[in-house]
């Protein structure tokens, strides 16, 4: 349980390139990237496109993504919509409640940088990256479902290149 927690200390001593570590890396990365459970959580317009993506036409389940309602079970959180200042603290909290390793996809203009609301939005957080670290920015307002899938594939790409030895996992 929590192998990574324990491995972390041991693995530090290895240089990258060790054959065991590399193949281990491959397996662990592969498992992480092909079973990214998603937070069942929507904010605004983009949430509708997120729902459309998980519906039959685009089927997030193909990528091994199932929505889980509790932050304890999930690997990725899709920030799908405008983050207001009132909501920002809650998102930070959700993010804190998620177990490592965890990833964030910022979906749509609003969560990228405030989007259409960046100029006069007194209650809008201008970019969710001000409260939590974002891995992939998906542009669009709202992004097409395919665009979200493309963002997910980009995230998979990122996970694929992570390594235990480099201490990024």
């Amino acid at each position, binding site marked *: 349980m929590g192998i990574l927690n324990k491995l972390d200390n041991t693995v530090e001593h290895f240089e990258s390139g060790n054959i065991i570590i590399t193949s281990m890396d491959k397996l662990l990365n592969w498992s992480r990237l092909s079973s990214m459970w998603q937070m069942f959580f929507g904010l605004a317009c983009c949430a509708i496109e997120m729902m459309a993506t998980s519906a039959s036409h685009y089927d997030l389940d193909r990528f091994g993504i199932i929505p889980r309602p509790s932050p304890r079970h999930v690997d990725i959180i899709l920030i799908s919509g405008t983050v207001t200042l009132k909501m920002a603290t*809650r998102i930070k909290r959700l993010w804190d409640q998620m177990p490592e390793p965890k990833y964030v996809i910022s979906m749509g203009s609003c969560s990228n940088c405030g989007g259409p609301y960046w100029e006069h939005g007194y209650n809008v957080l201008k970019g969710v990256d001000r409260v939590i670290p974002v891995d992939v920015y998906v542009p669009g307002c709202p992004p097409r479902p395919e665009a979200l899938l493309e963002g997910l594939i980009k995230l998979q790409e990122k996970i694929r290149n992570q390594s235990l030895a480099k201490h990024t996992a």
Partner: protein
Amino acid sequence: MAELRTEELTINMGPQHPSTHGVLRLVLTLNGEIVTNVKPVLGYLHRCFEKHAEAMTYPQVIPYTDRMDYLNSMSNELAYVLAVEKLLGIEIPERVEYIRVIMAELQRIASHLVAIGTYGNDAGAFTPFLYCFMDREKVLELFEMVCGARLLYNYIWVGGLSHDITPEFITKTKEFIKYFRPRIKQVNNLLSYNKIFIERTANIGMLPQDVAVNAGVSGPTLRGSGVKYDLRKEDPYSIYNKFDFDVCVGTGEYGTVGDCWNRYIVRAYEMEQSLRIIEQALDSIPEGDVHSAVPKRVKPVAGESYVRTESPKGELGYYIISDGSLNPYRVKARSTSFCNLSVINQISRGHMIADVVMILGSFDIVLGCIDR
């Protein structure tokens, strides 16, 4: 049992909760499983629409109205544009009006599909949700064909439309109507008339007529209470007076009038009526230019207008004050979900937690519309 001391439990539902349809927060006070008080906390999606509208020119506000109630962007655009046109006092070509009606009704179908689907999901049935989304995808395809966007269209402009419809759109829409009629029946069989679903929703959250009217509840929520009031009939805007359709009300087929099931089934019936309107409109659509009445500069004289329309969720009003400049002085959106939601405390007291979820779902709220 009398000496058994119980304590009330306060539960926080949301802003992150699977069934609050976004980021609504409900503070529930519970006695066991029985809800004694519901306190909605809004504003988690307050995106300052009204402030933005004051800083934009009139046409630039349209994309923001899209984002206000993102499930029925077309209706929002329509309401806003009607209000601006009223200020400008311009005549709209007939063809434009027809296309607007077609779009608004297609949007009504799409919006109701989401309402029905997510309501099924609230009840725990995931499959109807996906069936509804499959059908909605077809509507979105139509929209995408006409204006290039799937969700937020910026299609209805002051005085006209951004694009004319194509003959392909008309054939595709007719195909869709043919395809969609049996699908409504299927969803009804799968979900609406399912015994478990009826048990979950019938006789839950009764909203009496007088309370509904007094609290400003509108749309399917009001009609579920048996009030035959539809702005398309009562106060026809655009060209709704040309079409023949019925106003559906809750009849208490199961449960009593005004409960969740009746509120829900009104939506299923309304989709059928929307199909009827679309059919009539498609058959009699005149030729014309959709750009002919679009003003170069939208600069109304000082004054104010308030237009209410029947959006899929209810009475959607835009109150616009103009001071004669290019930007509106004040835009206030009378959002439907905002008024509908305000009765939740009154009607969910005494029910169970699971019922609160169902009651909330039966209002078909959209947080973008509530918080603006």
